[in-house]
């Protein structure tokens, strides 16, 4: 029944949480928090001040270190393991008065698309969709939000792991620019792609966390990939909507939205396609302009992702050997099997999907394959980023100005000026090619089928760009019971690097109009 709170010793964990919460409420501590709030409230809008809000309940994905809870990454190999410190993101949110109420189930080590590879318990979608996939890998976080057990949930997004469950559960899932939120305390899957993501019912709490609580400003010296303060200031100066007083946009006048031609794939569910087009109509009604754009490297992005992510994962997961922490296979008198240490521990500690990706990654990094796989994938990754930089009006603040060759562009894209095709503020596309599949179907899928689901979410991850999935209405055949249940899809908006604030602002405005049936409703 409980789809998200998941540990080996739930009672013990709850006990610890309760104690912590009491400590938090202790007068002296409370006063200290208040003091901090007062000093920082000068430029903070009144509505996020501590004490005026009801307690915000936070659910944390089980690969993010949280004091008082085990952190297992849904893997047998870390069963019962606690990481003895708090992740920076948890510390930050708790400092702003949020309370961790539980940890969320997920795919083992974040590897999966349907939150079904957990070593402990599969996650299913929220009522009345229990038979359907909740998406992955942050499925537990999404369901917690959907069921109203959490106001905000933390997930991690490596190739769509926050956006995909958001699309399947009718919630909002946001993946910030790479390097904005600290990854200290987040168990890495693929470091160069991993981001901490936020899920909520609506866009507003997420925008308040990122912009209102100024999380975007906080550099973490413990995370070497956290963007330094100087670069944050520079990037922020080139962007809009970071002022804490900025509200959502009134309309979309002056904004151009791009529809990537390459995203109109054969596998796209017709209802999702229809929903996408309806959303584009809505954008135009709100004063926005829609143009088609070409992202020619898209077709290679998925392959590149499934080379890079498993390679980094194989490397990251080498540390789980049962020597210092976690599960250890003690059957027999020795760890050695055929003279290879830890073979048993790793063999029985990891699930099938994890082992598959470790093997995949180990192969693509091997001396005979690295040139053809890992190196090529890194090149594709650069091309994907170039594609994005070419279509966005804003330049990438991390790179020098680049010049692009028009000859690489798809022929069907019209030339707007003599300089080339139209440039856009945001890209708009579906998050997932289909509505959530039945869990039963998922079980019969080959791994390759489920990898296909990530086709729309992976490019933004490869380029480190901010992206958000918001619910959108899709056409429903009143005769179909299933279609009446699955009456929503996920609409994804992608922005240029560090354009997170404006992206959230536009998404907040748009979400009310593209999902009339679902937004905010339980």
């Amino acid at each position: 029944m409980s789809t998200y709170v998941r540990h080996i010793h739930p009672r013990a964990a709850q006990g610890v949480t309760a104690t912590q919460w009491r400590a938090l409420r202790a007068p002296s501590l409370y006063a200290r928090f208040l003091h901090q709030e007062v000093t920082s409230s000068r430029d903070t809008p009144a509505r996020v001040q501590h004490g005026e809000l009801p307690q915000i309940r936070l659910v944390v994905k089980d690969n993010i270190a949280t004091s008082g809870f085990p952190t297992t990454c849904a893997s047998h190999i870390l069963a019962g393991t606690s990481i003895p410190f708090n992740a920076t993101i948890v510390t930050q949110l708790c400092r702003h008065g949020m309370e961790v109420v539980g940890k969320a189930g997920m795919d083992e080590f974040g590897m999966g698309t349907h939150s079904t590879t957990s070593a402990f318990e599969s996650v299913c979608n929220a009522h009345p969709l229990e038979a359907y996939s909740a998406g992955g890998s942050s499925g537990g976080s999404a369901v917690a939000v959907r069921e109203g057990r959490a106001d905000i949930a933390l997930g991690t997004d490596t190739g769509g792991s926050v956006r995909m469950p958001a699309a399947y559960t009718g919630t909002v899932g946001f993946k910030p620019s790479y390097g904005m939120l600290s990854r200290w305390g987040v168990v890495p899957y693929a470091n160069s792609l991993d981001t901490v993501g936020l899920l909520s019912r609506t866009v507003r709490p997420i925008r308040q966390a990122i912009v209102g609580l100024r999380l975007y400003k906080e550099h973490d010296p413990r995370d070497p990939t956290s963007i330094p303060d100087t670069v944050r200031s520079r990037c922020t100066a080139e962007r809009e909507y970071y002022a804490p007083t900025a509200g959502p946009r009134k309309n979309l006048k002056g904004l151009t939205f791009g529809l990537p031609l390459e995203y109109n794939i054969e596998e796209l569910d017709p209802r999702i396609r229809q929903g996408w087009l309806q959303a584009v109509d809505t954008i135009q009604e709100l004063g926005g302009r829609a143009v088609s754009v070409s992202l020619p490297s898209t077709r290679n992005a998925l392959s590149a992702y499934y080379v890079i992510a498993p390679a980094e994962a194989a490397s990251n997961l080498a540390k789980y050997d049962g020597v210092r922490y976690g599960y250890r296979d003690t059957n027999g008198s020795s760890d050695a099997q055929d003279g290879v240490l830890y073979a048993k521990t790793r063999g029985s500690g990891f699930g099938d999907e994890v082992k598959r990706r470790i093997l995949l990654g180990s192969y693509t990094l091997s001396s005979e394959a690295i040139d053809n796989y890992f190196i090529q994938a890194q090149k594709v990754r650069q091309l994907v980023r170039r594609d994005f930089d070419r279509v966005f009006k804003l330049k990438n603040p991390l790179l020098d100005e680049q010049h692009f060759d028009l000859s690489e562009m798809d022929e069907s894209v019209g030339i707007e000026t003599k300089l080339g095709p139209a440039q856009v503020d945001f890209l708009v596309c579906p998050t997932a090619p289909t509505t959530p599949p039945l869990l039963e179907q998922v079980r019969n899928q080959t791994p390759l089928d489920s990898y296909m689901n990530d086709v729309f979410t992976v490019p933004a991850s490869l380029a480190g760009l901010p992206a958000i999935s918001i619910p959108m209405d899709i056409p429903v055949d009143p005769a179909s019971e299933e279609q009446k249940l699955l009456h929503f899809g996920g609409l994804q908006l992608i922005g240029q690097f560090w354009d997170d604030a404006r992206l959230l602002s536009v998404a907040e405005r748009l979400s009310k109009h593209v999902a009339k049936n679902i937004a905010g409703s339980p």
Partner: protein
Amino acid sequence: MPQIRPAALSKYLLRGQLVSRRCLRTQSRIQASPVTASTASLVRYLHTATATGEPPSNEPAPIHVPLRKQLKDEAKKQKESGTKKKKNVDNQVVDGWELTVGIEIHAQLNTEKKLFSDAATSFNDDPNTHVAYFDLATPGSQPIFQKAALVPALRAALALNCDIQLVSRFDRKHYFHWDQPSGYQITQYYEPFARDGHLRLRSRDGIAAEDGEGVSIGIKQIQMEQDTAKTVAQPGDVHWIDFNRVGMPLIEIITHPEFHHPATAAAFVRKVQTLLDAVDACVSGMEAGGLRADVNVSVRRTDDPNAPLGQRTEIKNLSSFKAVEDAIIAERDRQIAVLEAGGTIAGETRGWSIGSTETRRLRGKEGEVDYRYMPDPDIPPLFIGLDLIGHMWDTLGMLPDDVLDTLIQEFDVSPKDAMSLVSLDEGKRLEYFLTIVDFLMAQYSDDIDFEYYQHTVNWILHELPRLTAERSDEPAQDLGFTTDGECLRMPARHFADIMIHLFNGEINTRVAKELLWFVFRGRVPGEYPTVLDAIAGEDLWFRELSMDEYEALADTALQGQDDILRHFIDVLIFPRGKLMFLVGRMIRIGPEERIDPNTAESVLRRKIRDDYAPNLKIRDNRAARLLEEKDSGRLCSGSGTA
């Protein structure tokens, strides 16, 4: 005169910071993230069975053996084998074969913190007391490059004449071993921070005679990397792991395969250690386990100059200079024997134990792990500014070779003594010598006799150590040389005074030695404020004999020495040994404290040349003639009787 202060200059290394073990200890106490009780309890004893007794992984844990034990083992093995090995010096070449060797040296950098965490570096502290989350590969912890490691790393690279790369990167080298918590070592494989260096070895560095006056060895690259944890073997297949060492910064120095003689390879390793010491880049020498070498060895026949290099094997973890030379010789001989018997050399990794006569196989090609090098996705590229490199150059100080050249060429010191001066007491004796030179310069300025320098060196290297060596009944006492060119038990000012009085002929050598004791025992300045007061107070002035007294003494000394004096007849150059015997006799007979051996010698020379030798010749000739006459008379009378 150039002021050479390598030890003093090294203080500027960390931009004015002094590295001392004491600082480190305070640092560690306030360190924020050591192992907490909860994680410490997770550290377990690793229990494993391995069939071969060798670590199954490809990185055999370097287990450090104390030097004294090494030497003992070596002696024992030699005794057991009962055979005297051929001396290495005669074993540098095998006719018909060419040896080729490349070397990789791992050295621990002299830093306060580990390479990617702020845990303190330590050597003999309690196990598992300096461990940050990242060192244990705690999930969710991340590496933060500690910039201070760049200082010793850059100094090492500059001392080895490398090109510093303005951009370098860190890579993960994957292999499983319990001493490697994350399952990979962070190193610089694809883009190291230093490339294309070289080191010139000269004959004085102890290279093989076959390499002549000198040889230049190319250095391919230098990379920064992490050390592994220390394994402490316990009885019964149990290993304890001390994570204090894990993540400590190392540099790996990789040479081109340009060695052809074993002694030269050993000389290279020795010289690298001296250099790293001189620039304060390295923590401790080979003997203390701070430096380890791997050698790649191959042989090929010399008959075909176009033949490619032979298949190479690698010998890992050599921990002394002698081991480097011995292992290369043993491996060379093994390879030649295999090839001459018609076999082939397999590319494999081999090991060497001190004192043995052959290398042993650790693992073959099939056992090699594919390290799956991957750029570390967490660690940003390292950008090294030209200003930093410039600063490092400016504060590098003089390198040992330059110091040696200066000593030999400008101070006329013998190469052997110059080497001793530079290498003893981490250069502190050199500093002391330079302080004395300052006093000598103040005394004599431009009129200084260059011989004074060599004399001073002799006293520093040979007379001063006697002060401590002769007191064997007492616990060993240190002279207490300091890095700023002073000596606690022999203040430079007093020593310089003794030397100056000696050079001026105001005291003799015996008195000078006696005065060393005065200073060493604290009578100067305790009893007498200065050396001068001691000489005056104890009446130690050298009152030399008058010329007449010298001549009279010489006459006495030469009495009855005709047998020796005969060697001086009709020779251009007097036989030195015989002359010195006579000088010694003169000193023995006369009042020693009033005799200057040089004057005694010149008086003797003159007397022998002008007087004794010619007179003896005449006497001898006369005696010979008398004998002749006598003999011929006998002959005559004999014939008369016949």
